[in-house]
């Protein structure tokens, strides 16, 4: 079943590359992907821990337990749902292209990114886990380079090289981790690795180096503080679907990897002194505070809507890392749910930004204003997504952020963790400042002459966009339902 889910976007993308089919093919493939994901979602049996819907070939290389194997457990299922929802919205919000084969190239690449993300989350094998993510990088470069806006070539190069370096560091980290495991129990299969991790075979001192490599590698992929300068310009200059898929879904690969590999394998590494008296956890906390406070302030200074949302998505990564750094069940489940909800809210925000860019051309605040009069649906959707992303109760972002904050204050938390949680709380205020300022600048106030001519969203695009806030509300009112999926995986990870 999962292999079919993986093949749909790839086959459609191939057909589109060859010039056959049009945008409706891409839409059909996205809907099919969502359909199958929901089938898997409701077919998943929460009580059983471990992987379900598993299908695998036999070992590809003799002697190496490496095989094409796909399976899904609570956490990856949540990420799959996120990917499917965002893909549907992304395809619907792709800018309409002149009907030539390059349009096929555009839609095909968008589907390839989605396939890369799906593959990464579905892969039960370390090799394919890494390979699928790399698959998603190539079309990103193509799309930003060809169809981006602003100084797109420079930005496309920057994101590709930056992520390339990140992937290399990550690869060394993975290899280092793999070699740190005693030879007998080495395997590429994530399930076996989970059992190995549970028995804590890697001595504490030996955990520090793989931890650093993994955290820096994943940090670059996820725009952790010192390595974040590629993110915002890339999302701002990227065409809408790429920005949605990349900031909404692909960024979660890094965090998914942290939860899947760093937390179960290298728990003691967090408390090992790495630099003078600073333990690894302190370094991570300092970095994520950089994300929250520093990038938050940078976001306030932005004058263009797409840059504000780009930087805000970088800033919210700080909260997910805070959840991971707190290393307890509350913080971790908060982090995983936040990955899901942040993906949805930032995808919705980018979709609307794309729609505005299509209608107005420029996105800086001086040229916009009072759009709520002429595009009520867009302004309500933007308000919902904006309030969700700044953590308004009723949306699942708030539920997950609460868990992250409670995780940060759980007894046994170090002093620095508590103070950084308080700073993260202050970050919530900063995010409110810039998000409300941009909402006021774009939608409220005196309607500009050009904004009166805007046509509101119509037809099926409304449902595609509406999917995201609805999912956020579901997560907000019934987080318990989603946590049921996450609990077995996270308890196994923290054992």
């Amino acid at each position, binding site marked *: 079943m999962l292999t079919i889910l993986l093949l749909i976007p790839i086959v459609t993308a191939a057909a589109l590359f060859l010039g056959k089919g049009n945008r409706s093919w891409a839409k059909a493939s996205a809907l099919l992907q969502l359909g199958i994901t929901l089938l898997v979602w409701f077919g998943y049996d929460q009580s059983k821990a471990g992987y379900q819907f598993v299908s695998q070939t036999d070992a590809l290389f003799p002697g190496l337990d490496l095989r094409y194997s796909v399976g899904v457990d609570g956490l990856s299922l949540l990420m799959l749902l996120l990917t499917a929802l965002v893909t549907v919205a992304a395809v619907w919000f792709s800018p309409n292209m002149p009907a030539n084969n390059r349009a096929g190239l555009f839609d095909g690449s968008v589907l390839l990114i989605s396939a890369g993300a799906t593959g990464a989350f579905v892969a039960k094998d370390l090799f394919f886990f890494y390979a699928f993510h790399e698959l998603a990088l190539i079309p990103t470069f193509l799309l930003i380079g060809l169809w981006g806006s602003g100084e797109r070539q420079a930005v496309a190069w920057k994101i590709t090289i930056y992520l390339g370096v990140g992937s290399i560091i990550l690869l060394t980290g993975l290899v280092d981790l793999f070699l740190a495991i005693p030879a007998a129990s080495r395997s590429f299969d994530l399930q076996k690795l989970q059992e190995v991790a549970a028995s804590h075979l890697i001595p504490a001192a030996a955990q520090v180096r793989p931890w650093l490599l993994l955290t820096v590698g994943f940090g670059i992929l996820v725009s952790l503080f010192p390595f974040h300068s*590629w993110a915002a310009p890339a999302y701002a200059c990227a065409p809408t679907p790429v920005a949605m898929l990349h900031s909404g879904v692909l960024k979660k690969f890094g965090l998914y990897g942290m939860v899947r590999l760093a937390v179960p394998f290298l728990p003691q590494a967090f408390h090992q002194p790495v630099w003078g008296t600073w333990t690894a956890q302190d370094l991570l906390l300092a970095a994520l505070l950089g994300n929250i406070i520093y990038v938050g302030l940078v976001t306030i*200074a932005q004058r263009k809507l797409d840059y504000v949302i780009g930087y805000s998505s970088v800033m919210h990564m700080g909260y997910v890392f805070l959840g991971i750094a707190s290393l307890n069940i509350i913080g971790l489940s908060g982090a995983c749910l936040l990955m899901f909800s942040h993906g949805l809210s930032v995808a919705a925000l980018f979709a609307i930004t794309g729609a505005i860019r299509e209608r107005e051309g420029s996105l800086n605040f001086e040229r916009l204003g009072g759009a709520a009069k002429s595009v*009520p649906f867009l302004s309500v959707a933007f308000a919902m997504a904006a309030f969700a992303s700044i953590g308004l*109760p009723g949306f699942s972002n708030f539920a997950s952020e609460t*868990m992250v904050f409670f995780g940060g*204050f759980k007894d046994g*938390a170090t002093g620095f963790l508590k103070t950084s949680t308080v700073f993260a709380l202050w970050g919530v205020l900063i995010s409110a400042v810039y998000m409300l300022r941009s909402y*006021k600048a774009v939608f*409220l*106030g005196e309607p500009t002459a050009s904004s009166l001519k805007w046509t509101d969203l119509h037809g099926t695009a409304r449902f595609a966009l509406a999917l995201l806030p609805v999912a956020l509300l579901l997560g907000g009112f019934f987080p318990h339902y989603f946590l049921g999926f996450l609990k077995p995986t996270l308890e196994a990870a923290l054992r």
Partner: protein
Amino acid sequence: METSLPWIILLSPLASAVLILLFAHRSKPLSVLLSLTAVFAAFGSTLLLFSSHSVVQTSATWIDLGPALHLTIGLKIDALTRVMLLVVTGIGALVHVYSTVYMAEDDGKARFFGSLSLFMFSMLGIVLADNLAMMFIFWELVGVSSFLLIGHWFTKPSAAKAANKAFLANRVGDFGFMSGILLVWAATGSVEFAGIQENLAKLTVNPSLLTLAGLCLFCGAVGKSAQVPLHVWLPDAMEGPTPVSALIHAATMVAAGVYMLARIFFILEPSPVALGVIAAVGAVTAVLAALMATQQDDIKRILAYSTLSQLGLMVAGIGVGAWGASMFHLFTHAFFKALLFLGSGAVIHALHHEQNIWKMGGLRRTMPKTFITFVIGTLALTGTPGLAGFFSKDAILLAAWHKSAFIFGAALFTSLLTAYYMTRLVVVAFFGEAWTPNAKHGHDCPPAMTVPLMILAVLSVISGYKFFAGSIFGEELFHSVHAAEHVSLVPILAVSVFSIGTAGAWFLYNGRSKDPVKIPLFRNKFYIDELYASLIAGTQDLLASFSSWFDHFILDGVIVRGISGLTWGVGYTLRLLQFSNLQGYAFLFGTGVVILFYMLIK
């Protein structure tokens, strides 16, 4: 049936808000109908709840992570909740009826009623909450609904700015509130009031932590009830339609802070430092707001500052330990302040959105019903003996008398100023001649507006007496209201202060067409707004632009572009080695060999 009532109260406004958003955002009558049924359903079930005085408790899990964390949407009805429920649903219903006419010709009417229902849902959530986490959830939801309501006429830039300001000020308060909750949770391990009560010892064992947690929780109240540092948003919130000001910025939302303090009083009680700070903040707010109110010309701004000062009084009441008296004052204040606001709404509606009192005048003849109800409300507020205000303010003064002279002095001075500026308002607006032609054709509003005024006028009178308040408060709660034993001097002082204030204002303003007293300091609100604008907004933008510059040039420029520049540079210099001279190459080759040779044989 007993446990389903709270759910009906809570969820009916939510249902109406959702239905309006999804289906009825086009048709005005349907949305009005939906929100009216919702608010009256809530009001009805509240009255039903008064039939029995038992404590009702139901809850639904929100987040359940086993022993580690268990957050619930818990509803608890006890005496305090009943009082607040009555106030919220009662005044809510009256405001809903009032706005059907007031907002008649507004094209965003459906959106208005949707936001009103959302507000009712969030406010009821706060009142019904049985744990701090749930209270925080609805705390922010109330913040959002006030953002929507203040910014109702969003095309007006000033309204949009005021809405933003309100939300951000509340958010600052919420930041403190959440830190308080986390501190309490970290110490006692539970967020429910009952849970905290049980292992309060774990918190009180460390007095500095207790004070810190108490003051953090108090931050939430400062944000919501607009106490001194965070009071700037309330006067600007008058940008919203008047029913909004009446419901939110007089009776219910701003009272949420006082209610929360009353709820968590058992946490604050063991730490005198926290109570002292709370009392001081309350007193300062009361005096400051009263001073500002004396110099305002906009009728709604005067009432806003009056609300601020009365809230300061309630918070001071809690600070001196008389949370019962504060709740009683909140109870009575809700009625007459809503009456005053709705009255001013009627005046504004009649004079085609004229809000400056100096452009009104002589309305007692043209708007008799509004005039009578407005005077009753003013007398109740200023504390004339026999009306509601007198009893509740007296209870607070009594408690303050026993606790600290400074608080008592401040409260007394505030009552003086309250009498002064309220009489000033009534005299200028209603007595004398119509200062402008527009004021001449004032007329009483249709019954849908004047009937609520009358009901509120009646309530303002009887809400002070035992037979009415006692039944609502219930025996032991009403007893705690009058806990402090009676000192006859206090009421005498109160009455004398009231008469001085009223007489002073009467003589000063009777028959005047211009404001004789000009104090720019008060008129410009002690220049606090300008201070905030330059201090907070200024430093934040400065910091933001610096970090954006730093991010662009240093972090992005030096490190990222630096590395790419470095590689380019190295490439460029190495290129120079190809200088196409064969001898040169041989020479380099030779020198290389020789150097290698010497390195080896050394």
